[in-house]
């Protein structure tokens, strides 16, 4: 499909989504009347973005799956009240961040710590968690090392407070600009800058500690 053409209402998604058509980057639906957006278009455009953010914030595959569903349901339900003050993408980011916070608070309240999903024991490539340039040929040893490195960084990320973790994920993993982060989290740009500095310093000190054998 050529970019810019609105999706017809009777188009359905059959089979696996085609990521090569340029619609998965989340920019395709910008500018459309939110009430005209179909759910599967919304899902197709933002599913990777939402799932990645959920996974990085929660650090748990199953929780990320559950949270992604909640996010899409909430987004679809509230599309009518979207005022267009920010981009659709930023609005969805904000919903994801808020729901992630709620889920983390709920986990703390229920004293659910150290849960490790069965999926987290799988090799990263099986789960679709691939490094950049995932097509290149790697030896099994390289795969193992990269998996371990990723898991360690992800575990250390979970040790950050949620406020700092959110900022760091949005900036360094999702590559959002300071202004987009400010809109997405609902804070000023100055606060974003100071939180990024604090978060990186905190993460550096956590990464510098010798790795313990605890589960994430």
């Amino acid at each position, binding site marked *: 499909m050529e970019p810019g053409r609105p999706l017809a209402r009777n188009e359905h*998604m059959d089979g696996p989504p085609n990521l090569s058509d340029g619609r998965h980057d989340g920019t395709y639906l910008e500018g459309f009347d939110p009430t005209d957006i179909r759910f599967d278009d919304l*899902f197709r455009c933002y599913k990777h973005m939402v799932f990645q953010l959920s996974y*990085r914030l929660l650090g748990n595959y199953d929780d990320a*799956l559950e949270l992604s569903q909640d996010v899409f349901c909430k987004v679809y339900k509230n599309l009518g009240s979207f005022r267009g003050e920010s981009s659709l993408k930023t609005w969805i980011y904000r919903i994801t961040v808020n729901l992630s916070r709620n889920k983390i608070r709920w986990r703390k309240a229920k004293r659910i710590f150290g849960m490790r999903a069965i999926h987290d024991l799988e090799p990263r490539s099986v789960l679709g968690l691939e490094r*950049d340039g995932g097509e290149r040929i790697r030896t099994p040893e390289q795969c193992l090392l990269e998996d371990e490195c990723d898991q360690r960084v992800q575990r250390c990320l979970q040790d950050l407070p949620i406020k700092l973790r959110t900022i760091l994920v949005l900036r360094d*993993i999702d590559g959002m600009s300071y202004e987009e982060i400010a809109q997405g989290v609902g804070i000023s740009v100055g606060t974003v800058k100071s939180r990024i500095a604090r978060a990186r310093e905190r993460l550096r000190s956590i990464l510098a500690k010798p790795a313990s054998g605890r589960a994430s």
Partner: protein
Amino acid sequence: MKCNKIRKMIHGYIDDDLGPDGRFAVEWHLETCPACRKYFHEMADVRENLRGLGAVKAPAVLHFMLKSRVRFSTPRPSPAWFLPDPFRLLGVRDAFPWKAVAAVIPVTVLLFVFSASLLYHPGDLKGIIAASPGGFYSQSRSAGAPDRFVAPEFDHDRMSELADAGVLTPETDHLDLAALVNPAGNVEFTYISGDPRNEEKVRRILDSAVLSPAVLNGRKVGTLFVLSVERVRAES
């Protein structure tokens, strides 16, 4: 420039968020300060570690899990698919259930009008008036339909007669009234009861009738059915 200030700027430098002057100041400082250079490399390493985590793709199962929660193939119903949404045009948000309130109000009014029409049957009175031009009738609070008394014209003797006959009982707690229907179909009211308490009530009602005939027109007021009041007279 002091190291503290430079270290705050280093993050902007890493994120490529500094202007040319800021970049120059940071680079110049890093050339001369090994501690800040070390700090810069550590922060850059942290960033590279995070960037190296790579993209996470949503699993295909997410699509099927969501399918069970949302009906995919049904287009989302617009709040007003046949008309532009007035609330949206006015900028009203959905936080308060304005639409529900706006829907409930006309339903409530319709129910009220319907129930009022069940209680009030103007046709009954119209029939009485049409059948007795020039007559008068009375109605008491405890009575159902108004009793009709045939009289060619209004006079006090006839009404006293009725009172003596016990049809109109001033001593009861009823609010007894008589209404004169003139040939034009209009009703003139007068008071019959000799009870001073009733007299006061009737005066009050009739005074208000004089003051606000529009309110009384076609409506039930106390025990009075008033169809059209041209002139209201209270006599003691």
